[in-house]
C-alpha cells in the first residue's frame, strides 16, 4: 500500500526478543485500527544503521548507540506488558498515523 509507514523491530541477535515483541506490537496497532497503515520488519541492532533509510521508525528492545535519523522507541514494554499503551501512543505519534 502506498504511503504505509515502515517500522523496524530490532534486538541484539535479531532472533529472539524482536520476535517476541512483533506480535504484541501488531495486536496493539490492530486494536487501534492502525495495523493496515504500517509494515513491520525485523533486524539485528547491528543492522539498524544500514536499514534506517528504508524505514520510518525503530522499535528496539536494547539500547541503540548508532546515530540514525529516524525515531527510536524502546520496545521492552512488549515483552513485560508494563507500559504498552504509552509506547504504542508514542509510536503512533511519531508516525502520525
Amino acid at each position, binding site marked *: 500500500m502506498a504511503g504505509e509507514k515502515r517500522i523496524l523491530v530490532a*534486538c*541484539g*541477535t*535479531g*532472533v*529472539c*526478543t524482536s*520476535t*517476541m*515483541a*512483533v*506480535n*504484541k506490537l501488531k495486536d496493539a496497532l490492530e486494536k487501534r485500527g492502525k495495523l493496515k497503515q504500517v509494515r513491520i520488519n*525485523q533486524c539485528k*541492532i547491528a543492522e539498524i544503521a544500514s536499514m534506517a533509510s528504508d524505514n520510518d521508525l525503530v522499535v528496539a*528492545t*536494547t*539500547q541503540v548507540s548508532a546515530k540514525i535519523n529516524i525515531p527510536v522507541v*524502546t520496545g*521492552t514494554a*512488549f*515483552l*513485560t*506488558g*508494563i507500559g504498552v499503551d504509552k509506547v504504542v501512543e508514542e509510536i503512533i505519534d511519531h508516525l502520525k498515523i
Partner: protein
Amino acid sequence: MIVDFTLLLKEELMMVPLVARNREDAFEKLALSLEQYGFVKDTYLEAVKKRERTFPTGLCTGEINVAIPHTDVEHVIQCAMAVGVLEKPVRFANMENPKVEIEVSIIFMLALKNAHEQPAFLQKLAGLFQDKDLLHDLASKTSTSATYQLLLSALAD
C-alpha cells in the same frame, strides 16, 4: 499450524532450585546442562556471557523479574530452553537500560537454532512474563517436575 511446545520443554533442562552466586555462575550451570544433553556446542557458554555484556537480558516484569540469556544461532545444535528458578535472586543488567541492575528470580536460557524460529513459542513465553500470578507461582516451585508441569500447562494454553 499446530506447534508442539512439549518438544521444546524438557524436564531434564529445568534446574529447581538453582543455586548460583551470580549471573555468570547461573549461566555456567544452565549452559552446561544444555551442552550435556547435546543441544548446544561448547562455544555456547562463552558466547552467551559475551552477548550478555553487550546486550543484557534482564527484564523488569514487576515483582518477579526474569532474564532470557541467549546468543547467536551458530552455537546451537538443536532448539531448546533451560529454565532456572533461583534459590536466591541474582543481579542482571536491565535490557532496556544496561546501567540499571535488577534482581532476577527466574532465568529462561534460550538456545535458538534458526532466525525467527519458533515465533509462536517465543510469543507464548513473552505472554508468560506478563502474567504476574504465574511468575509468582513459578518462583515458588521447589522441584523440577512441578516447574515442568506448570510451564507445560502455561505454554500449552
